[in-house]
């Protein structure tokens, strides 16, 4: 291995994670492992050198992943983590791709124009390069601005796996939105967050505490996305660390102290309150959703040692997909992302949506 190889090995990869509807388990392991290795996750394909597909990308999601792969610069490499991958498996897979990348990566393609990341310009006059000019239309504030048709997702940092919002955008204001889920047609696997309930349903004896733990971790996972999208990466990291500890079956007493610190920090942030208040997310504003998530985690912590068996029938969490289009219309892009993060729609078992 020459100097450039050694340099590449030392530099390490910059991973871009692709979440899929049934890929929660490998995603959690990959996020934890990437943080442990001090790799810096990329927010877009251009900066990334390693594509980590968490779970199976099928159907339209596979096409989107292929496009993202095409738009990554060389040297690059890709790994597909199976939906049931455990921590050691994930760690091995990352070792392997890091080594491959140091050796020059794979899929070295020739030059030529690459597809723009998500920028699909609609209608209008033909341009050299084969893309139409954006058309214009009246916007929310009575200005005539370019109308762009942009799919938000499915491959986007801190975004629910498989979710696609087909947005009509002027400036950075979403005028219209349609919501669908891709890559969820594979309904064989149970959703990761519902695992204790599924076990209980199939007759196994599951302590109630296990379901509380899983539910609290799901809330913290959503909090991580919300805080990241709210531009507070340090707090997002804290939420994810807590989430991982919940799932590692740490004793509830130690977790409670850690969570209390985290909760104080989030509740005490005036900037966060100022920015999240009043963004309509349906039943409540985004701030209300965030604070309620904290309440739910706090309550779950009290019941984590509950050893009574879990009943077989779970209360239906309900779908939030149908409410999204109306809420997103008229929102600025930043607010739209906050609304999606607050509602945190489940993308598993949503095959009917597309």
């Amino acid at each position, binding site marked *: 291995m020459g100097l450039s190889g050694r340099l590449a090995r030392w*530099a390490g990869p910059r991973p871009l994670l692709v979440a899929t509807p049934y890929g929660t388990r490998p995603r959690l392991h990959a996020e934890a492992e990437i943080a442990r290795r001090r790799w810096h996750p990329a927010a877009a394909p251009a900066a990334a050198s390693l594509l980590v597909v968490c779970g199976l990308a099928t159907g339209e999601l596979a096409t989107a992943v292929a496009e993202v792969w095409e738009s990554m610069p060389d040297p690059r490499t890709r790994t597909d983590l199976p939906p049931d991958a455990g921590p050691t498996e994930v760690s091995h897979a990352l070792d392997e791709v890091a080594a491959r990348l140091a050796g020059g990566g794979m899929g070295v393609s020739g030059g030529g124009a690459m597809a723009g990341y998500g920028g699909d310009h609609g209608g209008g006059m033909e341009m050299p390069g084969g893309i139409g000019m954006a058309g214009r239309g009246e916007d929310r504030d009575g200005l005539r601005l370019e109308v762009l048709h942009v799919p938000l997702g499915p491959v986007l940092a801190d975004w629910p796996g498989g979710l696609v919002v087909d947005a009509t955008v002027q400036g950075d204001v979403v005028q219209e939105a349609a919501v669908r889920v891709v890559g969820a047609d594979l309904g064989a696997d149970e959703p990761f967050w519902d695992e204790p309930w599924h076990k209980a349903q199939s007759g196994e004896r599951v302590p109630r505490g296990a379901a509380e733990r899983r539910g609290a971790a799901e809330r913290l996972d959503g909090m991580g996305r919300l805080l990241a999208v709210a*531009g507070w990466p340090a707090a997002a990291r804290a939420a994810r660390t807590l989430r991982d500890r919940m799932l590692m079956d740490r004793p509830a007493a130690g977790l409670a102290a850690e969570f209390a610190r985290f909760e104080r920090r989030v509740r005490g942030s005036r900037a966060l309150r100022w920015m999240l208040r009043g963004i309509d997310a349906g039943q409540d504003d985004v701030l209300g959703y965030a604070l309620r998530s904290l309440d739910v985690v706090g309550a779950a912590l009290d019941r984590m040692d509950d050893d009574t068996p879990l009943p077989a029938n779970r209360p239906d969490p309900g779908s939030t997909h149908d409410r999204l289009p109306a809420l997103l219309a008229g929102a600025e*892009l930043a607010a739209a992302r906050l609304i999606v993060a607050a509602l945190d729609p489940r993308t598993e078992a949503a095959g009917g949506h597309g």
Partner: protein
Amino acid sequence: MPLRKGAAALGVILAFPVVLGGLALAAAVLDSRTRGTGWAGPLREAARLLGQRRRRTVAADGLLVTAGVCALLTAATLAGTAVLPLGERPLADLAVGVVWFNAMEVAVWAALWLTGWGANSFYPLVGGYRFLAQGLAYELPHMFALITVAVGAGSLRVPEVVAAQRGLWFAVAMPVAFAVYLLSALAMAFWGPLGGPLGVDVAGGVRAELSGPDLLIFQAGRYALLAVAAAAAVPFFLGGGAGPGLPAWAWTLVKALAVLALLVWAGRRTAGLRMDRFTEASWLVLIPAMLLQLLVTATVAVAAR
């Protein structure tokens, strides 16, 4: 004698890139440390980007992107010539040093807009929009803060601004201006809570389509800009090189690093500020507060004359 003068001038010219580079690297290292990617994070990222091929989007305006990316580093460098700590005098001791600093830092507007627009892609474009909105929110309070400094010193020349603080640092004499300056320093370097133009919610915003050397230069420019914004607080508000024991250049470096550390630390403490909310506060609170500060400072300056 002319020879010694020449050698001294050469020394100052050579010291400038070393100081600028050192401060920018310090900013990058502090940033990486607080982000959890370790002390060596920036050097590893630089090594990676040097080996990464450049990639451009369909029908991108390559010239605009290149101009924007290079303008960021250039603007930071040129702003630094007037304010960076190099002993008693900065590299370019202009009669209008304060205005020069402000003018160069306004070039950042163009740099970000060109980079965001040129990529012909949605997220960088939104990042560009965001920075323009941010400019509207922070630039006026920022300019009033600089004007207050100039009024307090009765001069636009940076060494004279430093000399005017012999009795009392401007950070104490005009605390509102100092606070507003620190906030606008975060805004002009689109850092921390004011990092919306590069937000993760828009897939990295302005820099979403940058790769390889483009991204490396862009990042270097951003860290240099933050370093210069922090360093400028020293001659403007913290008495320049004044201090016991150490030589002037050492004191200015120590103070610049302290401000830099404060900015990086503060940037991690709080959620991002969106301009649809922040602009209102900026115009209704920060600008009136700055005008009051300016009035007080001007009254004191006239009375002292």
